[in-house]
């Protein structure tokens, strides 16, 4: 019986300073496979297509159900989560590359620390008095809750930034994910008390005004977060703040 196989072409890099190179793999086809299970198969038998034993391919993953945001990579040239990339649904040979907007750690694993720094910069939190029992939280309409929920599903995976033409390795653009978080926290009754502080953080270099409205972010977002609504909304909030600061202060 001739066995069906899956061919993969993977861009590898041994460490952050070394050069990248391509390697091909061929593994037996099995139903219900996704890119993760292919990489796991390579781990179990790390042999390249030329029968050469190689180091297993390194990649990031954790939950495998698209809520942790770990396994982002370029699959056939486009950014997405590897866990939802079902082999039956994508073009073969499958070409895997690390994200290009973040420093490569090794193979398909990148360092997305810049995203977490951005969250810190935009003060993405509700400033509460403390964890002691202070009774119920603020009353909020379910409508606002629903908007906040969609924004809060952001798993810091980086797809929006990888697809964004304005986000590059050598600029300081904060990117859609961070702007959307500003909106998330400015929508919360308590969070809104610090709205201006958050807005100030995005009214600078790399801030909201640097957005070129290419709207690739919203297309690339695996969680369908309305990122461009957030960008426009934060644009409005910052514009109003600008006018207020100029005219009313």
């Amino acid at each position, binding site marked *: 019986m001739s066995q069906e196989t899956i061919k993969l072409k993977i861009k590898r890099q041994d460490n952050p300073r070394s050069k990248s190179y391509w390697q091909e793999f061929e593994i037996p086809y099995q139903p219900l496979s996704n890119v993760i299970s292919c990489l796991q198969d390579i781990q179990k038998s790390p042999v390249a297509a030329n029968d050469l034993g190689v180091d297993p391919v390194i990649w990031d993953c954790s939950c495998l159900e698209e809520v942790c945001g770990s396994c982002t990579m370029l699959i056939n040239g486009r950014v997405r989560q590897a866990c939802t990339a079902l082999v039956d649904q994508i073009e073969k040979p499958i070409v895997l590359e690390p994200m290009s907007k973040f420093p490569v750690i090794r193979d398909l694993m990148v360092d997305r620390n810049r995203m977490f720094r951005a969250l810190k910069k935009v003060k993405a939190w509700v400033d509460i008095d403390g964890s002691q029992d202070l009774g119920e939280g603020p009353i909020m309409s379910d409508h606002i809750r629903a908007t906040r929920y969609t924004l809060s599903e952001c798993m810091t995976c980086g797809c929006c930034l990888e697809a964004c033409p304005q986000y590059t390795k050598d600029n300081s653009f904060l990117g859609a994910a961070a702007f959307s978080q500003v909106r998330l926290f400015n929508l919360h009754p308590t969070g809104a008390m610090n709205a201006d502080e958050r807005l100030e953080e995005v009214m600078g270099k790399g801030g909201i005004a640097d957005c070129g409205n290419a709207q*690739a972010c919203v297309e690339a977002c695996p969680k369908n977060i309305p990122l461009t609504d957030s960008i426009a909304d934060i644009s409005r909030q910052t514009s109003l703040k600008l006018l207020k600061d100029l005219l009313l202060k």
Partner: protein
Amino acid sequence: MAKINQDQAHFYLLKINSLLGLVPIGVFLAFHLGINSLRTVGPLQYQWSIDLINNMPFLFGIEVVFIYLPLLLHSLMGFYIYFSGKRNVVHYGYPRNWLYTLQRITGVLIFGFLIYHLGTTVVPKLFYGKHQFLAAPFLMDVMNAEFQTWTGRIIYLIGISAATFHFANGLWGFCVSWGIIIGRNAQRNASVVFAMVGLVLTVLGFATVLEFSLDPVPVTPTVGG
């Protein structure tokens, strides 16, 4: 006024840049194309409009403050913006990403076109004294000559369509960047409206080019300089 830091300066510059594209540059473009299209009504009407403009008081000051300086700033910022991003429409060929890319490409095209356009229409002005310079016949001559060759026509067709696209798409960008339109629907509807605006301006421009090409009528001065 409190001192502004680098971050604020960056933000203000980008905001001003976005505003400049609308006023005065966008408004000027619309007037410019509109007034020029008087040529399709007749050479005389065209001539009058040019004379009217060229006889405005403080013309030089007005031109510098409302046209040349804004254009210069818009161009400089434009190049900064161009180089701050890295276009990727090859991999992410979404419609908006195409528009983003075209906005930047047309920006560069317009910059080149303007050097040519200003070089042939405005720079000569500087070499004549005001009293010897008769704007309308001079410009008519220049344009008549331009539109006798396909090179000239193509340069102008590209220049005009780049400018109208850049303006129409820029209007949309302005509305989003200033938070005037937010929701997906609003953004889509606005893009239809602005596309119409762009189309109208393009038609005006193209019609003028057509008229000049088909009917190169030389003119004599109507008003003394």
